[in-house]
């Protein structure tokens, strides 16, 4: 009797754990289906090519125009700038934490950087809006500080924790014997870092960078508050831009449920989903390579 009970318990627990594991996959799949379902009906009313290639996003004009090219470029433009700022900063911070800093500073720095990840994006956006935006306007003498550059600075901050903590793990997992081998050949500390540690941990660092960028491109609140939200193709970094995420967030409340405009926002969501999926996929491929 007791045996049967144990058997049933084992069976149940196994099933529950299996269910939990599979749920994540089911959710992602369902979200994708939902987006697809809502987005696809948009393409009955509007052509796919005009959507992807159109420069003008005028959902309220007559006839309405739903061209997301400027939004996609806005998102990528901000993301690339944020990458240029956060990648060198993040990787060097990781290198400092993993290789150079004395133990006490290492512990403090690591927890502070990780704490940075805990700040809600709306708070970062708010702080950026009242401190960074006026500063950028004065510093570069431009009509408005609400620009892609200000947005990128703030986003770089938000990508840092991801980049730093995952890169640091990758750097720390380089076998000690590699370092010792290089040092025994008479390499200086910097030569060891540059020639041995960085190349050996590169796949992990690439993975960290990709995950950081995934966070940046998906970020909504901070960019909506800081980048100025003008849906046009920027000609300089000090131009305001509007990102895909900000468009969805800003307009979702104003649309009539079931209208073409409403569905167009889901279509943007679909594009965004595909972009982040690709980024995560690349990141995952790199991370897998490190583990081997």
């Amino acid at each position, binding site marked *: 009797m007791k045996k049967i009970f144990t058997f049933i318990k084992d069976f149940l627990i196994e099933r529950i754990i299996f269910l939990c594991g599979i749920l994540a996959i089911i959710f992602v799949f369902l979200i994708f289906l939902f987006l697809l379902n809502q987005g696809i009906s948009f393409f009955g009313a509007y052509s796919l090519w005009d959507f992807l290639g159109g420069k003008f996003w005028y959902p309220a004009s007559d006839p309405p125009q739903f061209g997301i090219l400027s939004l996609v470029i806005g998102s990528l433009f901000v993301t690339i700038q944020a990458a240029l700022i956060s990648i060198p900063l993040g990787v060097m911070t990781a290198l400092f934490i993993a290789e150079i800093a004395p133990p006490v500073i290492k512990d403090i720095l690591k927890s502070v950087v990780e704490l940075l990840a805990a700040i809600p994006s709306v708070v970062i956006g708010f702080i950026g809006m009242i401190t960074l935006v006026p500063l950028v306007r004065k510093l570069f003498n431009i009509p408005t500080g609400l620009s892609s550059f200000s947005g990128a600075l703030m986003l770089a901050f938000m990508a840092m924790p991801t980049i730093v903590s995952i890169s640091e793990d990758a750097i720390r997992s380089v076998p000690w*014997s*590699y370092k010792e*081998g290089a*040092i025994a*050949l*008479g*390499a*200086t500390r910097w030569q060891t870092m540059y020639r041995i540690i960085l190349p*050996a941990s590169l796949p992990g660092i690439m993975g960290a960078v990709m995950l950081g960028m995934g966070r940046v491109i998906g970020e909504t609140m901070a960019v909506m508050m800081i980048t100025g939200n003008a849906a046009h193709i920027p000609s300089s970094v000090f131009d305001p831009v509007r990102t895909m995420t900000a468009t969805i967030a800003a307009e979702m409340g104003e649309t009539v449920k079931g209208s073409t405009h409403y569905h167009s926002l889901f279509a943007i969501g679909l594009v965004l989903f595909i972009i982040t999926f690709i980024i995560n996929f690349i990141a995952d491929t790199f991370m897998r390579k490190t583990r081997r």
Partner: protein
Amino acid sequence: MVVKIQVNNLNCWFKNTQVIKSLFLSILEHEILGIIGPANSGKTTFLRCLNRLNDLNPHFKSKGEILKDGRNINTIKLETLRQEIGMVFAMPISLPMSIYDNITYGAKQHGIKNKKELSGIVEESLVKASLWDEVKGRLDQPALQLSGGQQQRLCIARTLAVQPEVILFDEPCSGLDPISTAKVEETMINLKDKYTIVLVTNNVKQAARVSSRIAFFLMGELVEIDTANDIFVKPSDRRTEDYITGRFG
């Protein structure tokens, strides 16, 4: 015989544990000095004192002096010291790059840039390490694809490429099969003419096969140092005899 390295009253600690106790020892030029002794006898620590690799460990402290060619090694620039005193580790550490790059790695950071010169160094080092014939057609392949024995000889070649004067071997054959071991030993004997070699080994027979002189370490102390012949035929200390005949350790 010229004294290459002179160790005077060396004492070493890790935290509060003394691992080497008032050690006096000279290493002669162009000899293979074998160091034997049971685990925790301070062999490897001593070896790593010679190229100051112990300095990487924050808990390490030492007193006493080590003279290389009559000059205190603490006054030699760290990178220069480690170039002049090369080291081959127990586990072959091929760096994750091609065979060619593994060997040029050290040479490059000591400022050699000329491609022709580098190729020359690669061939010369590989020949000296008795590996050239096995890899000459595939220098661009990843070094991690080589067998354990080949990787160990690659590490020897890499050490030779920076033109050292002394080579420290830290149990170089502990992870190798008998045939690879024989090749590495042969390589060491061939290198004796040009280099001074210090070999730490757990294998008493290996020490007997390759060493000119043998030092026996026990609990951080040097018990006895003598020619290989004398140590095996008429050891002057009882503890040495017990160890080499396998009664302990």
